[in-house]
């Protein structure tokens, strides 16, 4: 099973959590990005995500590998949902395990920052007033060879 996945079905939080188990782990940190009912003061009805799955999996996996070179991690996993999401559903799940908690926290936050900056996924918000907009995004950081 890939360490970083893109799925169009609800993220199985319990299954991902189980994959963090490791006998040497003393601290696990989990981040869940959830669809919230508002964005910049406007009521959100639902979201739709598109993703370029093969590249998203590749970039996500590279981020996890990079995190393992920066911190002594026992596990580093991630999953991004695409498709139609209602308020309260998890759009992204990131989990880290380390012997000590500082590394697990730092790595989890860093992975999530990188995922937002580099993984080719796009979010479209449908607001309560019926307006539909692509979220203002971040210009992707390319990993193209110079």
């Amino acid at each position, binding site marked *: 099973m890939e360490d970083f996945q893109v799925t169009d079905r609800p993220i199985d939080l319990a299954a991902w959590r189980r994959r963090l188990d490791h006998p040497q782990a003393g601290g696990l940190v989990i981040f869940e990005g959830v669809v919230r009912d508002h964005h910049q003061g406007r009521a959100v009805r639902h979201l739709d995500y598109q993703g370029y799955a093969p*590249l998203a999996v*590749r970039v996500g996996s590279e981020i996890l590998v990079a995190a393992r070179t920066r911190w002594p991690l026992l596990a580093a996993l991630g999953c991004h949902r695409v498709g139609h999401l209602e308020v309260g559903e998890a*759009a992204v799940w990131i989990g880290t395990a380390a012997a000590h908690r500082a590394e697990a926290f730092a790595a989890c936050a860093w992975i999530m920052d990188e*995922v937002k900056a580099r993984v080719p996924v796009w*979010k479209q918000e449908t607001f309560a007033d019926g307006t539909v907009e692509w979220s203002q995004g971040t210009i992707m950081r*390319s990993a193209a*060879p110079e």
Partner: protein
Amino acid sequence: MPELTVLYFAHLRDQRGLDSERITSTATTARYLYRELVQRHGLTLPERTLIVAVNEAMVRWDAPLADGDTVVFLPPVSGG
């Protein structure tokens, strides 16, 4: 002329009205291909906001294109 597959996401998918298409093009690089698509379909995203992927790997704008390549112009991302 090389035959290429172009995939569209987000704003570009909306503007093109298609998820993907197969086209023949004289464009020798991703940059010339994007300019051709701008001309043909009125795509509005500036090149500087896009990243180019060919065959599922990120490449430079002046990377050469070959017959059978899959090309994607990636708008600013907003995952999470």
